[in-house]
């Protein structure tokens, strides 16, 4: 962005204040609030994504005037994020989901009950 000749880097200061505020908000949401676990997890993950965006746009110059002719492959960051989602969600999907629904045929529900505590736990995580 413009402004690299300015004495005071407004953008950096704003970014810094925002990231501190978001961190505190996330900490409060996790430890101080009375929200349900699912809301906490989805809420703080969204806050983390926003904070990553702040780093990317306000600190890392991912879009700036000087690089309009494409030294910064911002689309690679986008694809990286998509891949990250595929890897994490996909792994949880295949590696956890299955354990509550596996085993052959007709005994499925009984099996589900007897699946063992830790596997059960994993099945629940997938739900989030």
């Amino acid at each position: 962005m413009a402004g690299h000749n300015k004495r005071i880097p407004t953008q950096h200061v704003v970014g810094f204040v925002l990231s501190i505020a978001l961190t505190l908000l996330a900490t409060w949401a996790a430890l101080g609030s009375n929200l349900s676990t699912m809301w906490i997890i989805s809420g703080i993950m969204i806050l983390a994504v926003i904070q990553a965006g702040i780093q990317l746009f306000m600190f890392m110059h991912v879009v700036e005037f000087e690089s309009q002719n494409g030294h910064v492959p911002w689309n690679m960051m986008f694809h990286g994020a998509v891949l990250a989602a595929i890897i994490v969600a996909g792994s949880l999907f295949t590696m956890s989901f299955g354990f509550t629904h596996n085993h052959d045929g007709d005994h499925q529900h009984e099996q589900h009950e007897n699946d063992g505590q830790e596997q059960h736990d994993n099945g629940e995580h997938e739900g989030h």
Partner: protein
Amino acid sequence: MQLDEFFVTGEPLIYAGMVSIVLVSAAILFILTYFKKWGWLWREWLTTVDHKKIGIMYILSALAMLFRGGADALMMRTQLAFPNMNFLNAQHYDEIFTTHGTVMIIFMAMPFLIGLMNVIVPLQIGARDVAFPYLNALSFWSFLFGAMLFNISFVIGGSPDAGWTSYTPLAGAAMSPGPGQNFYLMGLQLSGIGTLATGVNFMVTILKMRAPGMKMFQMPIFTWSTLITSFIIVFAFPILTVALALMTLDRVFGAQFFTLTGEGMPMMWANLFWMWGHPEVYIVILPAFGIFSEVISTFARKQLFGYKAMVWAIILIAGLSFLVWVHHFFTMGAGAFVNSVFSISTMLIAVPTGVKIFNWLGTLYKSRINNTVAMMWSLAFIPSFVLGGITGVMLGMASADYQFHNSYFLVAHFHYVLIAGTVFACFSGLVFWYPKMFGHKLNETLGKWSFWFFVIGFHVCFFPQYFAGLDGMPRRVFTIIPEWMPLNIISTVGAFGMGIGFAIFIFTVVYSYRYSEREKTGDSWGDGRTLEWATPTPVPFYNFATVPHVNSQDVYMSLKEEGKTTFEEDELEPIHMPSNTGQPFIMMAFLFIASFGVVFEWMWMAIAGLAAGIVMMIIRSFDYDEGFHVEVDEIKRTERSTRGL
């Protein structure tokens, strides 16, 4: 550790291997010393950063690896044709199928294609080298040292024996103690670093170093496939890096990721492995598609039919390649819903692949085909690959996969796609671009002999395996029941046919080196369409004296019409080139030592090697070498002599 634990003992075949390694090494040392070639080797090859030379070294190493992997294959086929002869015992058979798979995928297919990319892509886009020549040399040496580390395992310490997929818990410390499995982990890790660097390098090269005026949708299709392949490499290889590192932590440092104790999860390895492994399949097939497209359009003497559809098909395949990994372990029991999702995404891939098949057929339709050896390899690819692709869709059906899984049906399928796709493409591309690399063509008559032996041998070898698989023959067994005997004997005959084809190919190389006519023009086949044919042969180290302005898809065709060349005397300017350096070689040699230390769990050696490697990186950081300029006079002299002006 005792010496007899260090060296593998008790196997006549391995003793023979040791003797031949010693003899070949001694012969090489003798020849280099006798003809005083050490300086030449260091100056011209070990320190080079020239993409063409690096490409040639990649291809030579890949051919050596093809020989090694092929020898493994023939040993396995011999065992299966005569299971009672006890040619190989169970343990040795396990080691051989493991090294066969690993060598062929990681150390043959990928380096071969990366070698062709190295030689051709900068020439196709009008660049004078890749974006990061130093990094390119680093990539090559990391691959070669990784390959060497993996290959010495059969004489030192013992080969890995858990299959190329290395599934845990079998591959874990509890069930596979000793250095064997560590060779797999460190060999792949070391060469994987280089592959990742290659991916970054080629992406930047293609995005930033195209000739002036060349738009993305004017790039030759091989360049396009290289770009997309690099994209897949960048996003897939870190997964392998992590998976290998986790298993190394498990085996060497006692972590519990994939173990049966400590609530580890062995199938997580399969998940991570195939999250890399499936994109890997496309890393070795997409460049092959690119090569076939180039060869077919050149020798059909037509512009590629449906260029844009082809490009979008490649992009779509690349995207889908990250969404199908679970089809490699449908039988894990992830449940009907998970399997259905991945079954559908798997079958979706057939759509863009089908589009490409019709592109090639459309290019051939009503064309005047010039039936050279390169073209024959490409023509043989289309029907053979379709057979492999169709059976792939069959395997993609999750319910049916429970029947096919781990049977010879699967073995036949992936050999049909990998040999008919990748190996045919390697031969086709090598024959096609051979004059550009070495200044003479390969003998066509001998080439046809090797082609027919290899292609017929291939079908005789693998077609029966579909039926052996449907008859219930599982993969990775060293002995079989009588019902499967006839099919297996046919298969073995075919395998030896392929072996003869390869031997003839090597003979062709030697024969052509001595007797082929030397090239006088740059456009060896007379029908060149893309920019690499506009350079003179042999290609000067700076590639292009002047870089032409590009405004069409088949650049060289329009240059020929306009009567222009890549040597416009009045436009000459000094050319900036990078200097040679021995650092990449030395750095990777140190990391090789470090990896060897990890393999044997000699931590002092690992730490020392790593420290030396880091020192090399620091030296690199302080290296402000600016390269050098080639003066106009020198360019004129070189161009006049190579162009015979």
